[in-house]
């Protein structure tokens, strides 16, 4: 059981700056994120795209912004729990008991949801029949490539993940690569390499086809793929891999008794608190009159939510407002003063 003053859900820019604000005012915090890396949408959706509306930063990419926020957290010791999804949030006396997908538990008076548009989950195949084979012979990521040895693997997708795995697994598997159009969005060198392997017969390429059906009694035996012109082909397959990127899903957050409005959480604009005392929402996931989905708004919301956390984490102390330019307390926490 981890005890902390505040638990932040989401390691995107808003979550990171909220952590900075919490540590600055002397509170502990830990961060949980479902992705395997820090940065949220900035890293997952647009690492290379420039952002032009961060105050005092004329231009920076999603990756640069993330790296700057991480270096701003350097003076502080913050525990990150990556590749973990928060599954459950339950009231326990004055605290919230939080459980993650890896079985970690936290006891904290404050939970700050900085979850963007929810957690990133793999996009799945459309046909319903695919579901029953999921995590047995149909996967959306590769955990152990050895299980594919000597088998027939059908890989779907047109990006780097699909191409990289097709190339890698073609060494000791029979590979079908299926994509909905002729163009691939993977790196050119990877596309060229794949085309070579198609020519030498190591990869069977099917373009303008999509998944239509999965067949097999207990285990997967074959799949049907359908061409743009409706022609259907049946491919014997031991395994299927789908790489269609990630989609944001609200996920378990929907079950925590919060006031939801579409995919956002209603908050007040003083503490950014939800209808549940001690649960806050900041950044893209929160909603209030006039809400702007800008990174700068998330920073402001996180700063205010952090002050609200102080009250519940230190009920017998009084929060005092201080500037980093002059406060020796703050400068000590920042490691700038003995």
């Amino acid at each position, binding site marked *: 059981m981890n005890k902390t003053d505040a638990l932040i859900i989401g390691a995107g820019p808003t979550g990171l700056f909220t952590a900075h604000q919490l540590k600055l005012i002397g509170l502990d915090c830990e961060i949980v994120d479902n992705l395997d890396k820090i940065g949220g949408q900035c890293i997952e959706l*647009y690492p290379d795209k420039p952002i032009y509306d961060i105050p005092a930063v004329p231009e920076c990419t999603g990756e640069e912004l993330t790296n700057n926020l991480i270096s701003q957290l350097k003076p502080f010791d913050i525990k990150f729990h990556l590749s973990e999804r928060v599954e459950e949030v339950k009231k326990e006396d004055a605290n919230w008991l939080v459980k993650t997908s890896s079985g970690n538990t936290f006891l904290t008076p404050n939970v700050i949801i900085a979850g963007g548009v929810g957690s990133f989950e793999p996009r799945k195949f*459309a046909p319903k029949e695919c579901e029953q084979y999921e995590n047995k012979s149909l996967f959306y990521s590769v955990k152990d490539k050895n299980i594919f040895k000597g088998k027939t693997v059908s890989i779907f997708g*047109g990006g780097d993940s699909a191409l990289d795995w097709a190339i890698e697994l073609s060494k000791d598997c029979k590979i079908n690569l299926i994509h*909905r159009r002729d163009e691939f969005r993977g790196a050119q060198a990877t596309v060229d390499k794949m085309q070579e392997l198609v020519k030498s017969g190591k990869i069977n390429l099917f373009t303008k086809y999509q998944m239509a059906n999965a067949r097999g009694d207990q285990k997967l035996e074959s799949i049907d793929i359908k061409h743009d012109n409706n022609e259907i082909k049946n491919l014997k397959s031991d395994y299927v891999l789908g790489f269609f990127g990630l*989609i944001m899903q609200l996920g378990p957050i929907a079950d925590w008794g919060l006031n939801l409005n579409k*995919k956002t959480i209603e908050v007040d604009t003083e503490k950014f608190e939800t209808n549940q005392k001690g649960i806050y929402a900041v950044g893209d996931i929160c909603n209030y009159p006039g809400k702007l989905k800008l990174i700068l708004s998330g920073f402001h919301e996180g700063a205010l939510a952090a002050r609200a956390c102080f009250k519940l984490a230190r009920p017998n102390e009084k929060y005092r407002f201080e500037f980093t330019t002059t406060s020796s307390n703050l400068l000590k926490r920042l490691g700038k003063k003995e």
Partner: protein
Amino acid sequence: MAKITYITHENEKYTIEVQNGLTVMEGAIQNDVPGIDADCGGGMACATCHVYVKEDWFNKLPKKENGEDDMLDMAFEPKTNSRLSCQIIVSDEVDGLEVNIPSKQA
């Protein structure tokens, strides 16, 4: 101003007058047309405002820009007439446009 008709998967029709300069996605979101999520807010980064455009209209619309097809790879059941509605800008020329909303966005 253009009249845009949104047809849901359940075949419900929503005909809405959308201001020039807005996108077909914004016309749907501002008028609570169900089935268009637009998670990323129009940034061509999520493929959850995916629609199907009838053939005759599909060819009349300005062509897809770089990156739209890459995003459509990730849409739910993309077809040859798939578009991201955040990339279709409303003008007098698209008056009468009809778009079909897929059964799901993800």
